[in-house]
């Protein structure tokens, strides 16, 4: 049966609310409206306003309430409409949620889950389309995950709720309508990257919405005789160095795909770790395919031109093969 990413997120929320009375869901429009991306449709009716709560338009306020609830024994899931808006709650997440365990000498933990949409492609312009997850991946004290598959869209929420520390989940807006044939959904881990496609010639690292572009590019490159290994990061913090390094030691080449801007990005971090950990295994310079360094344009053609696309990935990979091409 085909299951969409949206349904998987919805079912994960419903199952979490059903299985643990401490779980509450809150955020802008999550209740009566059913969620900006319809991920919480019907949950207010099913679980009531005590468990599913619409909040005022104040990210600073309702993320702070989530932290307080977590400190006092609940397992709150806070939805922030997009990562751009989450900047208003950055103080709560970075200065409070991430720091409390360490500042209290381990007396307090904050078992909070923050979900937010990220990424471009829907013509929502420069205040709703950015990929700011590398900023969160910079912060010690929180875990950052980015489900790219339907399995992970469902499977990551359970382990995130079970984690004693804050976990931030990034759902790429272009993924909600994607679907996969799945028998049954279950929990997946939130510790390792996944090799989504085995290959021998070059390691292509991607995450979130870029994973599918990387896989499409890999299929195209196979026709040109280049066998790509595609790694889905899944967990943006802490990064799974072992999976990446093991792959690069085999393929000797690395291309990183990241919808965020290149400067100070996760692509930069992955690149640096590979150069630190597998320098003598590299047979070509590392390449990156990231978004153009502009606030995301509104016009469709400009937005598409600013984003990593399959032809750009194909070209970046081919460029690492010199005369062989």
């Amino acid at each position, binding site marked *: 049966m085909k299951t969409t990413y949206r349904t998987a997120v919805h079912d994960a929320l419903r199952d979490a609310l059903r299985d643990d009375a401490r779980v509450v869901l809150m955020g802008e429009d999550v209740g009566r409206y059913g969620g900006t991306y319809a991920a919480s449709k019907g949950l207010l009716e099913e679980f009531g306003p005590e468990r599913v709560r619409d909040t005022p338009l104040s990210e600073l306020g309702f993320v702070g309430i989530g932290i307080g609830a977590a400190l006092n024994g609940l397992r709150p899931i806070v939805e922030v409409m997009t990562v751009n808006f989450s900047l208003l709650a950055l103080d709560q997440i970075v200065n409070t949620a991430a720091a409390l365990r360490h500042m209290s000498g381990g007396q307090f933990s904050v078992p909070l889950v923050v979900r937010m949409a990220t990424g471009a492609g829907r013509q929502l312009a420069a205040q709703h389309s950015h990929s700011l997850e590398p900023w969160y991946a910079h912060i010690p004290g929180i875990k950052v995950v980015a489900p790219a598959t339907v399995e992970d869209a469902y499977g990551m929420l359970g382990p995130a709720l079970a984690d004693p520390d804050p976990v931030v989940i990034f759902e790429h807006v272009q993924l909600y309508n994607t679907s996969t044939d799945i028998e049954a959904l279950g929990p997946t881990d939130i510790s390792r990257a996944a090799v989504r496609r085995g290959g021998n010639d070059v390691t292509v690292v991607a995450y979130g919405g870029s994973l599918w572009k990387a896989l499409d590019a890999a299929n195209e490159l196979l026709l040109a005789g280049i066998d790509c290994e595609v790694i889905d990061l899944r967990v943006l913090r802490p990064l799974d160095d072992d999976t990446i390094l093991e792959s690069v030691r085999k393929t*000797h080449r690395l291309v990183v795909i990241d919808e965020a801007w290149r400067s100070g990005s996760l692509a930069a971090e992955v690149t640096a770790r590979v150069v630190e950990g597998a*320098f*003598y*295994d*590299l*047979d*070509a*310079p590392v390449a990156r395919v990231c978004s153009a360094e502009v606030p995301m344009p509104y016009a469709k053609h400009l937005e598409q031109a600013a984003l990593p696309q399959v032809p750009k990935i194909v070209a970046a990979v081919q*460029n*690492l*093969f*010199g*005369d*062989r091409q």
Partner: protein
Amino acid sequence: MPSLGSDMDEGTLNEWLVKPGDNVTRGQIVAVVETTKAAVEIECWQEGTVGELLVPVGETVQVGTALAALLAPGERTEKRRRVAARSRSSTSAATEPVAAPSSAPAAAVTPRGAPGRRRWVSPAARRLAQSLHVDIDAVSGTGPQGSVIISDVEHAAAILEHVAAAEKPTTKPKSKPTAAERAVQMRKSIAAAMSRSKREIPHYYLTDEIVLENALAWLTTRNAQRSIDERVLPAVLLLKAVGIAAQRFAEFNGFWRDDGFQPTTGVHVGVGISLRGGGLVAPAIHDVPDKKLDELMDDLTDLVARARSFSLRSSEMSDPTITVTNLGDQGVDAVFGVIYPPQVAIVGFGRPAQRVCIIDGGIRIVTIVQATLAADHRASDGHRGALFLAAINELLQQPDLLEK
């Protein structure tokens, strides 16, 4: 390493017939290469001076590998590093002439980019070179921006190994294959070419019964005036007829390549020659329509002798544009050939036999031969095929036209 047939992937350099400093002329035989089918003399198609031999005797290399560097007339010999660039075999490179002009490999040695900068060597290649004791400065790069990469070092190491093996007096360089080894290899390459043919080429078959009375009578008269070694065999008449017909029907003369038919201007007829000990080759007699019967007879005799002693030339192996197979000696009535790719047609002749025929309303006993055409339906249709066979028939009814 030139491609000497669509089934050839690699060849072994048996012998160099030139050395650095020698001047070579167009068409000169410069080396002997062992393929699965024969030891083939390699011709050079450029004038110049031999700069450097890049592949040592005994080494087996891929089709498309540069065998030697050739300096253009007037170009100065420069000290070049020993390990040369190799061009990875690709379909286009496969048909390149044997010796690349020296500028190409020389450019590969000099890294592209800013002059005077440090050579680019990938970290992995540098480490591998150290462990294999390869001098990294002597390795030319084929990686991005001309950098030296792992595969370049591996290639250089393989060449060093060959050189070391060749220098050791106790170990002989790879000896010539025995007849049995050659037979096994040849079976393999025939299997590969014929499987490809039947897999890819939609064959269609036509037959035509050709009355040979006129041709044989004409030939008997012609031969009667000559000594035995000047006589021409009927097979030569058949070859010439096919050659002239192929010139008129261009869609049977050429190659199917890259999803399209490429006609060729010259008609080079491949002649199926079975070898003692099994197997066969089909080397070309060049420009058949332009040659006199006596010349063709000489060419055929020479070709059969050399094929059977395994010493053919590269152009003979790679040039046939259409093939003729003649199984008349074996006593079969007709032969339905399998096209040798990338050619698009093969004409077969069976055994000339006496038959009772009705000719001009009378019953006569005449000699006939079954001519067959197996052709590639991608390149031609049956209608044209029938006309092509009819043209061969018609030419054989007017043997004067074949003399020229």
